[in-house]
């Protein structure tokens, strides 16, 4: 089974919204050794101009994850998860993620390419806040190894 080239350009329905919790931001911050008070202390965050604690940049992957699960589960995608390797990752922010944000992610398959028997799928997950304003776009390139 190989990756369906017709996936390119496909836009998936938005996934269920994600409510960013203060303790989840703190837990994630501890896990990635983020020690800035703005990641942990609401007072420090407010003093820096934020409504609540600010998530580390790669916290966006937690919000993105449900969209990648949606892609892998797509019946006609032809993506065998046991053959998937994470190739590249990028986060492009309009603003940082802050505790209290209600975020909604929508995945678009930006490209499907073949390279020496492997497939490269680039998936862009656009994350917006409750007002519909852009917060971050998370882009993953997945390398799907071909049949041996």
């Amino acid at each position: 089974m190989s990756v369906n080239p017709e996936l390119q350009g496909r836009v998936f329905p938005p996934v269920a919204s994600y409510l960013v919790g203060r303790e989840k931001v703190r837990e994630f911050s501890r896990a990635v050794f983020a020690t800035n008070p703005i990641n942990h202390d609401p007072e420090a965050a407010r003093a820096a101009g934020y409504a609540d604690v600010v998530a580390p940049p790669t916290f966006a992957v937690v919000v993105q994850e449900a969209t990648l699960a949606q892609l892998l589960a797509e019946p006609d995608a032809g993506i065998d998860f046991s053959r998937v390797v994470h190739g590249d990752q990028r986060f492009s922010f309009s603003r940082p993620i802050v505790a209290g944000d209600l975020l909604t992610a929508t995945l678009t398959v930006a490209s499907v390419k073949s390279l020496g028997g492997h497939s490269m799928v680039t998936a862009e997950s656009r994350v917006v806040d409750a007002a519909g304003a852009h917060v971050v776009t998370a882009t993953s390139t997945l390398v799907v190894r071909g049949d041996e």
Partner: protein
Amino acid sequence: MSIESTTPRLDDLVVGAVVAEASFPLTRDSLVRYAGASGDFNPIHYRDDVAVSVGLPGVLAHGMFTMGLAVQPVVDWAGDPGRIVDYQVRFTRPVLVDPVAGAVVTVVAKVGAIDADAGIARIDLTVSFNEVTVLGKAQVRVRLAAAPLSDA
């Protein structure tokens, strides 16, 4: 001396200069903690038997964990996680985490480019384990002021 004066300014940066360095000793506990925090429970990141069964030499750190910690020295230098406007990496080599000895990941952050018009500095990361790089094209774009607020 104001707090603002410790925040790096775009004017003061020199391409090629090292702005931050750090090393992160990782253990299996670190991987379990990241699994819980991120929700990525792929067992290759905490079970040797599963890792070996899929052809890996042993338990690996999550690529997203390595990406997540590697940006922290830049956040500390910039003084505010909200200054990070873009961050990208390529996953090139795995970080093998020994059950007893763990693993040490080192990060060196250098100024890669300065875009004065946009107010953005590109910081390039060299992220290594056992003296080989594990991330490629690891670039962080940081929004910085040109001059301290007190001069405005």
